[in-house]
């Protein structure tokens, strides 16, 4: 039986740690118990205080060890094995934070450092984050789904607060005063009402304290934040403008070789034979043929490419479907299974009856194409074996999952694999897997030398996974006064994120139907929330026109959720939705929604040239609210970046494929947004300091596509129901 609550993440009731079904690339994870050896730790880091954040509830005696009351309890409790983050404040004044999260461009290295600096009451410049290193940091499922801010940010705040309490307790003991009389300020503890103060480092000299965070440690409320809530510059920004920062593809090791992989001519082809007779001897090529895998390694990328071109391979190919007919294929190939693999459904009321009884009834189909993440840094990995120990530097959003992948592929225990993730050239949900790491590791073992593999743009466009294409059928019924009475929504293949409607409708039938599909597919920034919002918010516009109502009024009439109403109203207000009518040839459109703890509404103005059909986006206004704002400048950066990325999928990005081959695997053939595509974008931030912060890397982009489509409709009377809406550039509406 399917379980509605655990499958739909779109509803407001969904728990934060549920996974959406369209994360096809995920597999069940191996739970890793991290062995934190207390003594090793202090040996490594020196004296100070160490605070760990336990995933599982901590036993009472351990809690006692973490409680600073009266300065007792600094015994040596065993640390829990399952922890999500830890922090060390050293006697030398350095603060080191360990988290399995990774930096992929969302600036969490900065925002997490801010969280720690805030709670610890410590200068942010002295806070260092060790991230995404499977040997040094605690297990983490991965950096995706806008979960860093709601989870890790909170955990680190708690950890840092606990460390501060420990330090304050030390001062209380030293001065023999009540810790209530003490105040932590910028790395010092002060005795209120006196001039007396002492630095953290003086207090920590020679100490080896450990603590596990107590669940009820009071945090600094957002209203009193001094570091959080501020726009802090990227902590290591200078390394990025000087070219000094080393991304995964920039790792170079002594004696390192360069690897190239023999790719099949089409998806799913199997290797019948491969002949490696004609290598240039001078190139000193390492050649590996292992099942369907064939690859070479040589001293330079050019020599490796020469060797690759010298391989003669025969492949067994299978006929495959192409772009043409894709949506019919998806709709006629449902996967009939139960559980996570199969359909999931939400139903209330009597949809068929209410649809039939409605004054207006409408039915439409929307489609979305396959698109690629195309992160500017393609997949890259450097693998090095020393004996049976494997170390891999690679760009991934899930270093621990890649470790599992490597261990399985190379038949070694996970303990012998270390994955390190240098801050990378982004991912957008596209780098959850470790295929490039496995390729480098396989070649490195054969070559007995470190090997680097960097995918070419064509490889990244072809052999990475894609955002799933999908078809969405929507039906709705409304009364004469615009009250929505029935809602039916079926998504084929694209996914379930954001599938539930936030509009009130007494009767609803909402279905996610997985199907057989032609391309390797997986997560993408905002997942299916983009497709589902496109269909829902375009359809709401169609219903509004059927009811002869203003699209904003129609939405508000059927919307109770206060937070969502607030962003719709804020966006409309800033945009001037009611104050002005569009000029001739221009159109206004609105779209918005809720996903992953964030509320967004976007207003767009387009201008369409009647003669040429050229569409120009004149301006965009996006209102966004995701609870308390952690870093307004960075939040704006994310919202604008998300909208610009969303512009590509809305207007022109589309993977063309036929017979198992991608036909436009290049930037010259696959158009991504560029400077001149960017309209003026205004952001309205709603700061809800009474609500815990949620992430913002994804949701801001879901309102854009429907807002553009709705604006084009208003300008031209033409309804565009497929993403991308204008695939051949902006000149054919």
């Amino acid at each position, binding site marked *: 039986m399917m379980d509605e609550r655990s499958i739909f993440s779109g509803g407001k009731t969904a728990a934060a740690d549920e996974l959406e079904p369209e994360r096809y690339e995920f597999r069940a994870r191996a739970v890793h118990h991290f062995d934190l050896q207390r003594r090793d730790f202090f040996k490594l880091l020196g004296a100070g205080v160490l605070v760990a954040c336990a995933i599982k509830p901590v036993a009472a005696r351990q809690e006692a060890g973490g409680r600073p009351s009266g300065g007792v309890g600094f015994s040596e409790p065993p640390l829990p094995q399952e922890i999500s983050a830890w922090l060390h404040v050293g006697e030398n004044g350095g603060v080191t934070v360990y988290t399995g999260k990774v930096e992929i461009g969302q600036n969490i290295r900065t925002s997490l450092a801010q969280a720690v600096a805030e709670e610890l009451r410590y200068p942010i410049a002295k806070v260092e984050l060790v991230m995404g290193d499977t040997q040094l940091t605690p297990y983490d499922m991965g950096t995706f789904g806008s979960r860093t801010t709601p989870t890790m940010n909170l955990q680190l705040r708690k950890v840092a607060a606990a460390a501060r309490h420990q330090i304050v307790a030390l001062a209380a003991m030293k001065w023999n005063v009540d810790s209530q009389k003490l105040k932590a300020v910028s790395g010092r503890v002060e005795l209120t009402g006196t001039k007396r103060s002492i630095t953290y480092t003086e207090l920590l000299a020679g100490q080896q304290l450990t603590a596990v965070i107590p669940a009820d440690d009071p945090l600094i409320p957002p209203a009193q934040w001094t570091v959080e809530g501020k726009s802090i510059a990227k902590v290591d920004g200078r390394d990025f403008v000087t070219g000094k920062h080393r991304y995964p593809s920039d790792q170079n090791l002594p004696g390192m070789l360069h690897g190239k992989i023999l790719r099949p001519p089409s998806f799913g082809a199997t290797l019948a034979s491969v002949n490696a007779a004609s290598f240039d001897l001078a190139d000193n090529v390492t050649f590996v043929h292992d099942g369907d895998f064939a690859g070479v390694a040589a001293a330079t*990328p050019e020599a490796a490419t020469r060797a690759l071109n010298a391989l003669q391979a025969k492949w067994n190919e299978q006929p495959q479907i192409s772009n043409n007919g894709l949506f019919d294929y998806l709709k006629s190939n449902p996967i009939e299974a139960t559980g996570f693999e199969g359909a999931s459904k939400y139903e209330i009321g009597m949809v068929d009856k209410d649809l039939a009884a409605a004054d207006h009834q409408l039915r439409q189909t929307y489609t979305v194409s396959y698109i690629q993440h195309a992160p500017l840094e393609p997949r890259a990995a450097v693998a090095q074996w020393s004996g049976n120990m494997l170390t891999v530097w690679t760009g991934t959003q899930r270093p621990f999952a890649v470790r599992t992948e490597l261990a399985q592929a190379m038949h070694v225990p996970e303990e012998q694999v270390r994955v390190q993730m240098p801050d990378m050239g982004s991912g*957008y949900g596209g780098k959850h897997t470790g295929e490039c790491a496995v390729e480098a590791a396989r070649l490195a073992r054969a070559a007995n030398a470190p090997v680097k593999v960097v995918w070419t743009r064509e490889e990244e466009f072809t052999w990475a996974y894609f955002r799933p294409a999908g078809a969405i059928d929507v039906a709705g019924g409304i009364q004469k006064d615009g009250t929505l009475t029935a809602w039916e929504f079926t998504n084929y293949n694209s996914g379930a994120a954001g599938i539930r409607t936030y509009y009130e409708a007494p009767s609803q039938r909402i279905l996610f139907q997985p199907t057989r599909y032609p391309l390797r597919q997986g997560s993408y920034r905002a997942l299916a929330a983009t497709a589902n919002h496109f269909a829902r918010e375009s359809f709401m516009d169609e219903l509004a026109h059927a009811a002869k109502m203003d699209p904003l009024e129609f939405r508000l009439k059927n919307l109770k959720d206060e937070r969502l109403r607030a962003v719709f109203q804020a966006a409309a207000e800033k945009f001037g939705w009611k104050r002005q009518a569009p000029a001739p040839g221009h159109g206004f459109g609105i779209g918005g929604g809720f996903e992953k703890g964030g509320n967004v509404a976007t207003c767009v103005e387009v201008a369409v040239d009647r003669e040429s059909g050229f569409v120009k986006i004149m301006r965009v206004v996006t209102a966004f609210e995701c609870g308390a704002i952690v870093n307004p400048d960075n939040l704006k*950066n994310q919202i*604008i970046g998300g909208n610009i990325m969303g512009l590509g999928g809305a207007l022109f990005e589309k993977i063309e494929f036929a017979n198992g081959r991608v036909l436009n695997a290049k*930037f010259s053939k696959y158009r991504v947004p560029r400077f001149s595509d*960017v309209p003026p974008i205004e952001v309205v931030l709603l700061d809800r300091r009474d609500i815990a912060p949620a992430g913002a890397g994804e949701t801001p982009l879901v309102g854009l596509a429907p807002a553009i489509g709705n604006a084009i409709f208003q300008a031209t009377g033409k309804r565009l129901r497929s993403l991308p809406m204008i695939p051949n550039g902006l000149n054919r509406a």
Partner: protein
Amino acid sequence: MANIIKLRVNGAVHPVNADPQNSLLSVLRDQLDLTGTKYGCGEAQCGACTVLIDGHPRRSCITPVGAAVGRQITTIEGLEQNGKLNPVQEAFLEEQAMQCGYCTSGMIMAAVAFLKTNPNPTDEEIAHGMEGNICRCGTYPRIVAAVQRAAQKGAQS
């Protein structure tokens, strides 16, 4: 196949062992360990690999290293002078014109070259002049602001 080529990069001469047909990008990255210059496409479409050759912006991914012999090559690593950032670098920091930062080197190199030809650009001219550089994170508006800011710095100095 010893094939020694002398390259003048960021003011210093480096002998490298490379086929003249090899791309300048791979020589910089793999032989000289100057990894600030990035690979993004290999077909002159994204600008991540932009370097200056005799002051002109060039796509190092499609530039044979042989064609750069005897010329002044400047990479992102060569912009900083005696610990002082180039005004464009400063402006990128001040505007926080990056997310993942992978496009940043190419953007800065393109901007340095662009401002030489147009020291007082409008925002539209900047967008037009930088059109060949892709930022997948969508930081374009900040990049325009950074180039504008650098232009103003240039005007003051």
